[in-house]
């Protein structure tokens, strides 16, 4: 039996919030208090700002925070992946130096995994880290790095040894992004936004104590980060919404939210905006067209069924039952829904689908859907990789043959050099 129950947790957190919540505090000042109380991340270890509360009871704390209108710790963006990775694999020094400033929101983080030459095959990273004297010296290029241009710290996967097999020659570093050898350059996408960066390393430096676990453990640590990333990718995670309230602390939080969400304004559009379909069909009169009605129904049916499938997975998890295949399907379903929604929006819009910009339909939102959905079947694991995972892990079909695990990484065939 757990020593905790929902009622006593609710009582405790409510009591603490009623005594301490104060809208006249500054955002960082309040969060420091919240962190010290253990209610900021109550499922974290007691030694590191938590209360070791069972994860199942965290929603009780969230509800009480919401009830009184209290602002929570900073969780948006890569910082929560950094915290999870540091908690799992970091030294006391790492925890001491980074965790509190992650939770207060004072530090911004970015992830430095993907490279131009390694997308689906992340472990094929070629960015090098070489030991020179008392430093690791980093050279190479990363890509798809959200917020890297304003990040204080980066989670870096780099190759330290070309003569070991691929997954063994990697190390995982925390790198200071504010140094001369690190240059973040925005990467413009086909939809005109630049939500990500390319990051170039030219003799950038990392202190030896900023490695997580040991040299050679890079892939293991990266797997932890990726696991937390996927866990948040089922579409059910709640982001705080700007409250618009006048008190100082809310104003500060709203600014933080706006800045964190700025790269993501087009994200709902890349999902296909199923929520706009009926409204648009009524506006244009296409709702009366039997062919369009069929196509609309197909998308709505797929979308609702996918939501229910995600809920089935989540309920199984909450009930402590072994998860069936339904937990692995959300990402692939989202791709198909986005693609089908794009087609339906095109049908509904007709010739207007050729236009773009603020004067086009719905202030450009429709145009943005039409050119953003290709991202969803690529980002965070392509459909092809998802299907390999589903067929191998869920359906137990044979694994793909590989050419890269039986020889030193140096000898693994790589992307052709450009002449």
């Amino acid at each position: 039996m757990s020593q905790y129950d929902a009622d006593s947790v609710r009582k405790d957190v409510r009591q603490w919030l009623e005594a301490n919540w104060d809208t006249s505090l500054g955002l960082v000042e309040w969060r420091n208090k919240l962190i010290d109380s253990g209610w900021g991340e109550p499922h974290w270890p007691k030694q590191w700002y938590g209360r070791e509360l069972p994860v199942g009871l965290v929603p009780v704390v969230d509800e009480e925070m919401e009830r009184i209108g209290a602002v929570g710790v900073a969780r948006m963006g890569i910082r929560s992946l950094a915290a999870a990775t540091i908690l799992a694999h970091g030294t006391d020094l790492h925890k001491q130096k980074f965790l509190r400033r992650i939770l207060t929101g004072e530090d911004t983080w970015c992830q430095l995994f993907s490279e131009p030459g390694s997308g689906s095959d992340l472990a094929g990273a070629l960015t090098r880290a070489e030991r020179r004297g008392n430093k690791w010296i980093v050279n190479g290029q990363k890509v798809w790095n959200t917020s890297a241009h304003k990040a204080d710290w980066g989670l870096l996967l780099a190759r330290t040894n070309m003569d070991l097999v691929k997954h063994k020659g990697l190390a995982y570093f925390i790198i200071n992004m504010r140094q001369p050898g690190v240059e973040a350059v925005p990467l413009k996408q086909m939809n005109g936004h630049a939500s990500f960066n390319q990051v170039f390393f030219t003799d950038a430096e990392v202190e030896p104590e900023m490695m997580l676990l040991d040299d050679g453990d890079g892939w293991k640590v990266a797997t932890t980060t990726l696991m937390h990333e996927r866990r948040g990718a089922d579409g059910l995670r709640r982001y705080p919404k700007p409250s618009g309230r006048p008190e100082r602390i809310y104003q500060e939080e709203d600014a933080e939210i706006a800045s964190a969400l700025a790269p993501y304004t087009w994200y709902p559009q890349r999902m296909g905006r199923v929520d706009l379909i009926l409204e648009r069909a009524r506006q244009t009169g296409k709702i009366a067209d039997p062919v369009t009605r069929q196509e609309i129904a197909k998308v709505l049916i797929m979308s609702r069924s996918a939501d229910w499938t995600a809920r089935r997975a989540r309920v199984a998890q909450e009930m402590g039952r072994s998860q069936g295949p339904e937990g692995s399907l959300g990402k692939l379903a989202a791709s198909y829904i986005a693609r089908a929604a794009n087609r339906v929006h095109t049908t509904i819009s007709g010739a207007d689908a050729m236009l773009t910009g603020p004067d086009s339909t719905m202030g450009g939102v429709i145009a943005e859907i039409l050119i953003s959905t290709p991202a969803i079947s690529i980002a965070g694991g392509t459909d092809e990789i998802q299907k390999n995972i589903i067929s191998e892990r869920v359906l137990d079909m044979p694994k793909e043959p590989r050419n890269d695990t039986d020889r030193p990484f140096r000898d693994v065939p790589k992307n052709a050099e450009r002449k």
Partner: protein
Amino acid sequence: MKFSFSDEQQEFRSVVRRFLEDKSPTTAVRRLMETDKGYDPEVWQSLGQELGLTAVHIPEAYGGQGFGVSELAIASEEMGRTLLCAPFFGSTVLAATAILKAGSEEQKKALLPGIASGETIAALAIAEDSGLWDAAGVAMTAKPDGGKYRLDGAKSFVVDGHNAELIVVVARKGGSAGNDGVSFFTVKADAKGLDRRLLPSMDPTRKLARLTFGGVEAELLGQEGAAAAPLAATLDVAAICLAHEMVGGAERLREDAIAFANQRYQFGRPIASFQSLKHKAADMLLEVELAKSAAYYAAAAADEGDAEVSALASLAKAAASEAYMQTAIHAVQIHGGIGFTWDNDTHLWFKRAKSSEVFLGGADHHRERYMQSIGA
């Protein structure tokens, strides 16, 4: 519960599955599908007496088990998995539900216990030669005749209609149209003027009959002229159960196809190791899991009295129609040449997928009905 099954429901499913794996192997399916009768009376009897499946959603007051649509649907799913040859869909799912939805207290007491025990096989005759499962599509007329009625016309695609002893019929008052003037009637199978003919059905595991009525004596079931609403409610339950039957069959087809692909070697490797097959299999899983979620949600919604149940029933039927047929097409393809032979079992499910695709209305019909149900 819309997103999970209770422990009792899971136990119920495994009991039904064990029973059906034992009683309905494909050898039995193949034997029974060649007969006109189409089912094994002994299996039917144990289905009713030992498992109580013929009574699952009939309230205890009428000799039933008193469970809900969810349990009825679980049984349907498992039967779809093994292609059980039995008059379950016609008698328990369709006819009993119609009597439950439309009948008076007295009629339910008189008619349901026999169906619940499995001793009476009943059928529900809705569609006619036009193949429409709704009140507006009914052309058959009922004429009052001294407290009883006389039916004239023809019913077609009547599932299990050739075996039934009790036939529930939908007919309309002469001169009425649309949802108006439509009533339920009950007719005894040996009534004078009733001619029953077994239709040559493409899916021999589901028997269909054409019934012609020439002044056949019938009794009114429920309120005169008020059948449209209970008929729609009956068809919602039927569509939900059919969707379950379909996802059960689709899942079995996928499992068998992948098992085959793991054993079949070409070019020195199992064909299941080719990415073209692995990706197809992932798509098959996705499509069927989405259809399952829809079917499960709709069944729970029916039990909870959800106002949206008609929309959900159509959603589930449309999703299952596409998923089952697509799975069946892929399953034949994965088997290759052998999959197109009579000796291979895949075609048994392929044909069930095809007949289920259009039974109670095809995916197009249910997508349109979904749109109308959500006010679009």
